[in-house]
């Protein structure tokens, strides 16, 4: 699923490791989501949206793969 995670993360000046720490996941998970190899669960998607203060559908685009 297409997402804006990389764009938002670099906009904040965070590394993948920084974001992983904030979300309590591994760096590999952040990388897999950014490269669209893995779609996160609903709870993780909501944690990401909350972290970036936006709605889930603004972070993920379900119409494009």
């Amino acid at each position, binding site marked *: 699923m297409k997402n804006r995670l990389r764009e938002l993360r670099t906009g904040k000046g965070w590394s993948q490791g920084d974001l992983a*720490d*904030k*979300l*309590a*996941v*591994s760096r*590999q*998970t952040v*990388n*897999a989501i950014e490269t669209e*190899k*893995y779609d*996160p*669960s609903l709870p*993780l998607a909501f944690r990401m949206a909350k972290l970036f203060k936006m709605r889930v559908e603004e972070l993920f685009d379900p119409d494009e793969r």
Partner: protein
Amino acid sequence: MNTPNHPDEIIPGKSDYSIWKDWTVNGWLMVAVFLSVAADILFLHRVREWSPALRGVMALAPFLAIILWVRNFARWVQGMDELHRRITLAAVFFATCTTFFVVVLWHRLEVAGLFQSLVPGGALQSATHPAADPCTVAHVFWLMTLSYVVGHRIFNRRYQ
């Protein structure tokens, strides 16, 4: 926030490998292997005069350790993040299927007399020979460990 558990913590040779973590997760499995080998080699085949109840306890002791290991392993997997939990469960499923397949195949080849024809004289039928019984905890331990590592590599590659 807490750091999630990582599969590499218990795979020797990986940069994140921790012998302490490995022991915490797999310690009871090591105990099960030790008890199984001790029961198979030292006691069950040589102390036939012991009471059936005592021999039964010694034969079942490894399985108590295995139950404790399963509990620790499940807790460790529960502490992973969702991607690693998915990879680990896929690797465990792969290891379980591979082990089941190999043990059943080995048994069928043994029943068919293949090992006896390959090594005449009954050496493979000796109780302490590794080929004599593929179902000991030690055999299953090595088979599952090897197939888990292979399975983990296969499923992990997809997300790198």
